[in-house]
């Protein structure tokens, strides 16, 4: 029987994380739930453990990319066959976990990314964020040769081969979304996009504020550019 884990990266999500775990458990009661606490200064780890999740904690804050890679390393080391990744702030509706996972479990694809722009009613991101998403949509879609409507989505599901690939140094830890899709495509993994529902962040928190969006776009473009320049041997599975 295959083992599946739901991983939730969390940084200062106290007061929210327990509800997210409960909602996930309601949808997929048999799956293990892992919370990777990225050096939170609040009660995130304690609340997650009390809610019944497996908790792995960074000694200090390392950022989103490092946090999800810790989750992949945990899942790979512990023999999980499939992994679903969902944000810890409650933005991603867990009701879509079975739909995201189904084609991966069936072996029809290696990697599924959940899109908020494919028909299911979701919140509308801010204008600047929509602009950024549109830019990366065009860029990533042209690079990988198929349309990816939501290349910055962190709602994903994938199999053990992708898990293993992501535990290596190839994984782009700085901002692992658009360039991660390009990397996956270079490595020959099959990518699919399915509709999911995303809610607005209740706390109004975002990774992208101030000058960060500009830095993010610059960094992501640079990252994609050097990914394309690298020796293809690096991406051999």
């Amino acid at each position: 029987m295959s083992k599946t884990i739901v991983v939730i990266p969390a940084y200062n999500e106290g007061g929210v994380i327990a509800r997210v775990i409960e909602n996930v458990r309601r949808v997929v009661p048999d799956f293990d739930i892992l919370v990777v606490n990225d050096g939170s200064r609040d009660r995130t780890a304690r609340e997650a453990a009390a809610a019944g999740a497996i908790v792995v904690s960074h000694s200090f804050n390392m950022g989103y990319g490092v946090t999800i890679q810790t989750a992949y390393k945990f899942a790979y080391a512990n023999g999980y066959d499939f992994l679903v990744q969902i944000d810890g702030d409650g933005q991603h509706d867990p009701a879509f976990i079975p739909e995201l996972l189904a084609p991966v479990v069936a072996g029809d694809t290696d990697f599924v990314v959940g899109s908020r722009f494919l028909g299911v009613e979701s919140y509308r991101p801010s204008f600047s964020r929509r602009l950024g998403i549109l830019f990366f949509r065009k860029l990533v879609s042209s690079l990988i040769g198929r349309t990816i409507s939501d290349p910055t989505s962190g709602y994903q599901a994938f199999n053990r081969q992708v898990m293993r690939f992501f535990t290596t140094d190839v994984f782009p830890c700085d901002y692992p979304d658009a360039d991660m899709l390009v990397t996956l495509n270079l490595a020959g993994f099959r990518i699919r996009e399915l509709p999911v529902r995303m809610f607005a962040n209740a706390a109004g928190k975002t990774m992208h504020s101030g000058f960060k969006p500009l830095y993010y776009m610059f960094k992501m473009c640079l990252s994609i550019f050097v990914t394309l320049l690298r020796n293809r041997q690096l991406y051999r599975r």
Partner: protein
Amino acid sequence: MPIKQQIFALVVSLFVFVFTIEMVRKKRLREEYSVLWLATSFTMFVLVVKYDWLVALTHLVGAELPTSTLFFGSIIFLILLAVQFSIKISRLSDQLKDLVQDNALMRHEFEKMRKGGERGPGAGDR
């Protein structure tokens, strides 16, 4: 080159050379970081002693004054030093990332084993 300038440049290059060696000897500076300092002070020393080499180099790079060539050389040295540090910091960041991840995963394993031990043999994961 005026003799005053020459003496000053020699004293500075000798001071940098001796100071760097001393830091390495006292283990306050690692060998790998001393190479650029030693090479620069040595080059400066040679160019001051062999002034005609400095003049030839000045013509080669198209500068007007030999002192400009020395300034240009010191700027290149600083750039190389900054690049060396950037590369090192990138490597250290990667190593730190791996250490934090390993530490988190091992701490989880340790906690699991400790709880298992407290509950006695056969206790569950969570």
